[in-house]
């Protein structure tokens, strides 16, 4: 884990301020699933993805917190629409990179997982009902990091939406795999130590029999 983290940190374009693409690369190296994607820098010529569409194009910058609110996210794009979306993003965010990803189809609810530092107890992790309504639904469970599979499983069972993991409307979601994802998150939070500030993985969706992280944000403290 530490070797992966150290190497990853040296690769960041801005020290200690990873963008979404970089966070997802880290998650991928830790064995978590993220969509196929390429990052196109502000000065680069528009690349053509090697994967097939439909595509997602979004502004990719550690400075922009609410991409959707600023019209920084374009979904469900064919090849021509992708070119237009890239143009629009270039105009709106001339200083920023763009992340082009393969659009992912999924079943069931959007979930959220994350991490934070509690002032009294230290590093903690969360799982809950995700998506843009997550703070309204407020259906979340917390535990301290690190934790084991059984404890992560109990977090999921504590949620109001737990019945969707028990075959609700024929859904075949795998809670054990989601529990393993939470455990990975808790290990990451723990391994980052004093560098860690906040982590959001939202949404996380069940796509082709695996949990896929569609958006990720990681805030670090600069530690000398």
């Amino acid at each position, binding site marked *: 884990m530490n070797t992966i983290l150290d190497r990853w940190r040296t690769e960041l374009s801005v020290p200690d301020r990873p963008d979404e693409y970089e966070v997802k690369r880290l998650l991928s190296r830790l064995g978590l699933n993220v969509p196929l994607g390429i990052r196109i820098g502000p000065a680069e010529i528009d690349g053509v993805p090697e994967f097939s569409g439909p595509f997602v194009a979004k502004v990719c910058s550690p400075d922009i917190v609410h991409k959707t609110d600023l019209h920084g996210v374009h979904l469900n794009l064919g090849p021509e629409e992708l070119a237009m979306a890239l143009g629009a993003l270039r105009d709106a965010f001339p200083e920023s990179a763009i992340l082009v990803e393969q659009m992912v189809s999924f079943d069931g609810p959007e979930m959220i997982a994350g991490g934070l530092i509690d002032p*009294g107890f230290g590093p903690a992790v969360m799982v*809950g009902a995700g998506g843009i309504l997550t703070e309204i639904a407020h259906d979340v469970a917390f535990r*301290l990091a690190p934790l084991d599979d059984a404890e992560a499983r109990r977090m999921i069972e504590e949620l109001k939406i737990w019945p969707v993991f028990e075959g609700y409307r024929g859904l075949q979601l795998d809670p054990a795999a989601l529990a393993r994802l939470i455990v990975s998150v808790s290990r990451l939070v723990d391994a980052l130590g004093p560098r860690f500030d906040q982590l959001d993985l939202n949404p996380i969706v069940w796509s082709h029999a695996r949990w896929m992280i569609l958006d990720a944000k990681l805030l670090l403290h600069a530690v000398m």
Partner: protein
Amino acid sequence: MTPNRPDLKRLFNPKAIAVIGASNREGSIGGIIFERLIPSLRKLYPVHPRESHIMGYAAFTEIAMLPEGIDVALLATGAEAAVAAAEACAVKKIPFLIIVAGGFGETGTAGARLEARLQEIASRFETRILGPNSLGVFIPGERLDTIFVEHGDKALGNGGGVAFITQSGSVGVEALGLASNTGYGMRAFVGLGNKCDLDELDFLDYFGRDPETTCLAFYLESIAHGRRFLERARQVTPHKPVLVLKAGRTAAGARAVSSHTGRLAGMDAVVSGAFRQYGIQRVLDDEELCDASKCLAMLPPARGPRVAVLTPAGGFGVMAADYIEADQRGMPLSMAVLAPCTVRRIRDATFPFAACENPVDLTASADDGMFGRSLDALIEDDGVDIIICTAFFAPPAISDGLIAEIAARVPRSPKPLITFTQYGPFTDLYLRRFHDAGVVGFPSVSRAVRAARFLVERTRILAALKEQP
């Protein structure tokens, strides 16, 4: 290097106690405390600069003149004087000081400086300090009581299994009053005060190991060493329940937070999650703290969530069923489905017209014995995990003998039996009589059902702890 730490046993069972600031003056705190200590039958040594005797006990003008072998010194002076007295007691090698005086960290920077001096004394000498700003201790079993304000001490005098550790004196004594109304078994009360030295960790360890303690209840506004408290609590929770009322939100809400995770944690949800993870049961107010500790200290864990309700009044049976089926505290309960033979046994023991499905309504014609025989049937029904028994004394055929009738079932029942009673202005009196007979009772349907949830929560915690490596 940390000096040797004396065993807390001497604090809770002292042979000799000095009271600095003891006084003959009517209404002085030092005087009240001294008077309260007289029934403890310990050796008492008042310290007063001028008086030769305090309430008939020979007084000492200076701490230095006290004899050897004193276990505890109570400091009931002003803040400045208490610091000087604390140092003199430490030099005298008195192992435990209870500093009642306020005027320390809680009042501002000048007070905080005085408190830092106490801290320094505790670290330099082999003396441990409880407080300052502490009500001290109340150990009913030892007749030891330093609390100088009204706190239902007579009703709590028989002792019991709960160690009650509180950071706030006021919440502590009010909770004691509340608990004493309905009967409560107390092993020890500890007022932590400002926690300049001894804190919740010390008492968690001590009462966690104490064979007479069956349940630990904490009121805390801050937890000094968060992780360590949790980790040590997990050493205790497999053996006895640990309850915490953690007041005050964490600072997480106030910090600049730019993630969903951080904002969702704002309302101290992390504390609740962490408590669950380490087997601690969280409660949200003083009534919950008292009710939960009362039932967890006295009753066996529930095997499951299925509740049977026995009542002489249909309306209360229906209310209980509604509370049971409502999803509260994330701890679901369900109405037990009674076995056909249970229904038959109850009908044979009562009336052909009694409603013998759950809730079992014996009607207002029932007598004491019918309650007893119906309880026997419910206790022996494998489909029942918890029994809630409504005990009303107004029906004509019911006598005070109902208390003994129910109490006789408690030691025989492997499943928890909770009583709900109300009887106009006599409610608390009857609840205390139940308590003295070993029966856990509450004065409302909702509190009785909530008590069942605390028991089911405890069962779940034990199951989760077993899964852990």
